[in-house]
């Protein structure tokens, strides 16, 4: 009787050890996959969004629609670059 109790205790001990090992392994795997996913899918940097404003009686604008870029080539080059001139100037371009 006491022998079978000792067997049962040993079996329970083995079971506890196995459970601990399995849980620790699962935790390590979760951490590893989380790190992998974070590296592969970095997401977006938070834009400097407007701070929440105090409640205003005026209605909030419809969802923001920042202006579209008309052309990826802006600022655009001139059709013809300036050329050297010997003519008397009609205007001065300088700092203001």
């Amino acid at each position, binding site marked *: 009787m006491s022998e079978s109790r000792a067997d049962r205790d040993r079996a329970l001990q083995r079971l506890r050890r196995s459970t601990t090992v399995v849980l620790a392994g699962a935790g390590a795997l979760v951490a590893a996959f989380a790190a992998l996913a974070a590296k592969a899918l970095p997401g977006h940097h938070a*834009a*400097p*969004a*407007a*701070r929440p*404003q*105090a409640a*205003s009686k*005026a*209605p*909030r*604008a*419809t*969802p*923001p*629609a*920042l*202006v579209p*870029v*008309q052309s990826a*080539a*802006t*600022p*655009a*080059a*001139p*059709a*013809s*670059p*300036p*050329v*050297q*001139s*010997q*003519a*008397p*100037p*009609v*205007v*001065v*371009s*300088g*700092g*203001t």
Partner: protein
Amino acid sequence: MTVSFRALGTTAVVVALDAAREGEACAAVERELDAIDRACSRFRADSELVRVNRSGGAPVVVGPLLLEALHVALEGARASEGLVDPTVGRALRTAGYDATFRVVAERDGSTFRAAFCTVPGWRTIELDERTSTLRIPSGVELDLGATAKALACDRAAAAAAAVAGGALVGLGGDISVAGEVPAEGWPVRIADDHAAALDVPGPTVALLGGGLATSSTTVRRWYSGDTPLHHLVDPRTGRPAESRWRTVSVAAATCVDANVASTAAFMLDDAPAWLEARRLPARLVSVDGEMTTVAGWPSEGR
């Protein structure tokens, strides 16, 4: 024949191809500049922009001209990756540029102390073009100085050309040409100061179209104690830019594009490469006087 007059806190210059229509061309230019001033001035109590800057974060419906100016400013910000940013208004004001420049220039710098603040960034601006509705967060102040002046120049040149066949309009050093061009182009002297006499030493280039802008820190300066400050605020620091350049002149398809490029280039140590990559003819003069030209800007050999 060149006609000049004061406008937008600086000097406007009009040259009409058809001299007989010069008066009409000037009137058209004045109408455009007045409209821009009413929409975009930071210093007129009755301007739309002042109303926006005082909106306390509430949405504001804006008129078509301010909407266009905002569109242009945001496009310039995007194209320059934020180097030309319309949300520098507060940084400019606290640094001392809080009134028309004539007032700022007359201030006693020895008793004035500038304060500096971060620039919130153009992405904080919410603009719904369908409803002409603008919202900026409370505390954000817009300054459209660079792009709105250039836009005024482009619009005014188009208006003048519509009545005179072709025209050149200069506004504080920004130049725009529209319509027909004289056979040899429009001759323009390049200098540090737009108010310099026409015979000031410097190269003359002929513009065949588009626009030309020059950015420089040699002119619009004031003092905080012993420290000289200028109006070209670097959005990355919120302070007047510490540039390796003294003067940057850029030619582009429009005056707006030229102004965005010259202002952005001013902030960049590697401005020649930045301009070359965009094929923008430019002339850069460093603070120690060394001159660099890129992308087909004409050489200055005799």
